[in-house]
């Protein structure tokens, strides 16, 4: 459902991607792990059709992301950017309506439930905490019926209890709807618990890939964090 082949991308003189290849199948949650500036966000942006690669190509739902046809395929894609913040003067409910309106769906009940905002959903967003805002955006996007989810730090700023809830929802979403999910995170525990396969990425290239179990075994590590550090040291 998601396939990237030798993606290359430059911003001026900076080579953000130097040949990233990855794939995610139906019902699979794939982790994207790497240090700051490794190329995770650029990869997700190319997969979302926001950037055009300088080299290589990406396909989502069988359509190249740099082709005009991808516009129609985007109906089935939901991308949660890392830094996005909902509009202060809307209520949570109005924001969900706005996002659902872009996709042409109405699924308020499920979105409100998933957001965990309860009656606060009718308050203005400027009264929300950072975590509540993140939950709101995640809930709005997870309820548009997408077949492909691109999630960039979905639990950033969210408290432990609600982070667990979001992870559970993502995992369940992928299995029950057969959606392909790319899950970018700095939180290794999160990646280990949610992802079926994990890509280690550094300085614009994939350093290693495998299931969490395979990676732990390969690097003789007790957790994914240790495996990641060893993988990067080995590649550097």
């Amino acid at each position, binding site marked *: 459902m998601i396939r990237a082949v030798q993606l290359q991308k430059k911003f001026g003189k900076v080579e953000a991607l130097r040949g990233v290849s990855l794939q995610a199948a139906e019902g699979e949650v794939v982790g994207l792990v790497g240090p700051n500036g490794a190329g995770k966000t650029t990869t997700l942006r190319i997969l979302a059709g*926001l950037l055009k690669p300088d080299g290589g190509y990406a396909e989502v739902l069988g359509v190249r992301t740099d082709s005009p046809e991808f516009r129609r395929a985007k109906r089935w894609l939901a991308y*949660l950017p890392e830094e996005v913040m909902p509009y202060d003067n809307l209520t949570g409910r109005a924001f969900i309506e706005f996002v659902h309106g872009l996709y042409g769906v109405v699924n308020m009940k499920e979105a409100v439930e998933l957001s965990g905002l309860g009656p606060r959903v009718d308050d203005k967003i400027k009264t929300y905490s950072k975590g509540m805002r993140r939950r709101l955006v995640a809930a709005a996007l997870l309820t548009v019926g997408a077949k492909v989810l691109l999630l960039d730090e979905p639990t950033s700023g969210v408290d432990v209890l609600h982070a667990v809830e979001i992870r559970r929802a993502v995992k369940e979403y992928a299995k029950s709807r057969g959606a392909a999910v790319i899950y970018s995170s700095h939180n290794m525990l999160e990646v280990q618990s949610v992802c079926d396969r994990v890509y280690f990425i550094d300085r614009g290239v994939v350093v290693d890939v495998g299931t969490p179990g395979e990676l732990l075994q390969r690097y003789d590590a007790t957790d994914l964090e240790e495996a990641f550090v060893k993988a990067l040291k080995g590649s550097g």
Partner: protein
Amino acid sequence: MGVLSALVVKDLQEILTSRYFLVSLVVGFAVLVALGAVMGASIRETVAGTQKFAVVVNDTTDLGMRFVEKLRRHGGEVYSSFSPDLLTRYNYVVVVPRNFTFPARVEVYARYRGLMSVAPPFVLDVAAAEAAREVGVPPQLLNVTTLVYMDGARLTEADISILFSLFMLSWVFMFLVPLLVATTAAIAMGVEKEKRTFELILSTPATPNALIAAKLVSSVILALIQFAVMAVGMFIYFSNLVVVETSPTAATQPFTLSISLSPSLLALVALSTLALSIAVLALSLLVATRTEDIKTAQSVVPSVIFPLLLPAFVALFAPVDTFEAYPFVHPLAVATAAAFGRWDKAYLYLAVDWALAAAALLAVSRLMTAEYLVTGGRRRR
């Protein structure tokens, strides 16, 4: 390094290297230079206008002759009879009556060259004061009647009142509306930049063109709401100030015009303003995408738009016919052309305005790709 100096050095390093600060510095400088050039040209034109006038005198009193002599020394060229041809060569013609004495009644025939031409020339009072001093009487102001001509036709007081209203109205349309539109567009775009929502929106089925179209529509609606509130305030303000006096006798004279603020004329002004506002809006959206938040967008966008609207200031002081080809004075140029029945010119300017709006929209739709909106740069092939 003390705390104070550390903070000051940090601020200077941060702000002096900010491109927004540098842009505002450069734009502020450019605006001042341009304003100086435009106002200077306007003043030179006015001075040149006051230096070029004719005096018509045919058998007058000694005091009248002294007055004529003073006017001649101030640059007036003396003729013995009045003819409309004089108005093609001079900005105004002073007619000295046979029974000239203080207080004197003097008629001035002025060629219409902006609102300032309606006011009596200052040189008349100077010459009168000098003549009075010579004969040892206290200086007294003249009672001047200004008869304004435009293309050989006489403007009545009602015409001048309407022209004044037209200028005020057009100035609002030329200057205030585009500036409101620019500010609104800055807010509309700045909020997306500040919230980093371009990525979210453009990864959905929404296209960059749909986003731009939405911004255009919402900005126009918001600007119209702002303008409506301001218009009501201005109406109340002007209704307390403007008293239009008509002169029924003057209207019956030959060569007189009868200008009216007809709905068709106002429609042309509105259409011209709408087209220019769309062009301003497109440019504002483009500039706003280069900023990072609402506050920066609000300060940078109007400072880019303001110099474009500068000639609207000049329109208050000088005739627009010297620079009426410039699109941002078209609401007034179109209105004036329509008021004098020059429909071909009015429609031509309107066509230019809409062509400009279309070109601006086309340029923006080509430039504003998803990549441009997300990263703030064009993709290099």
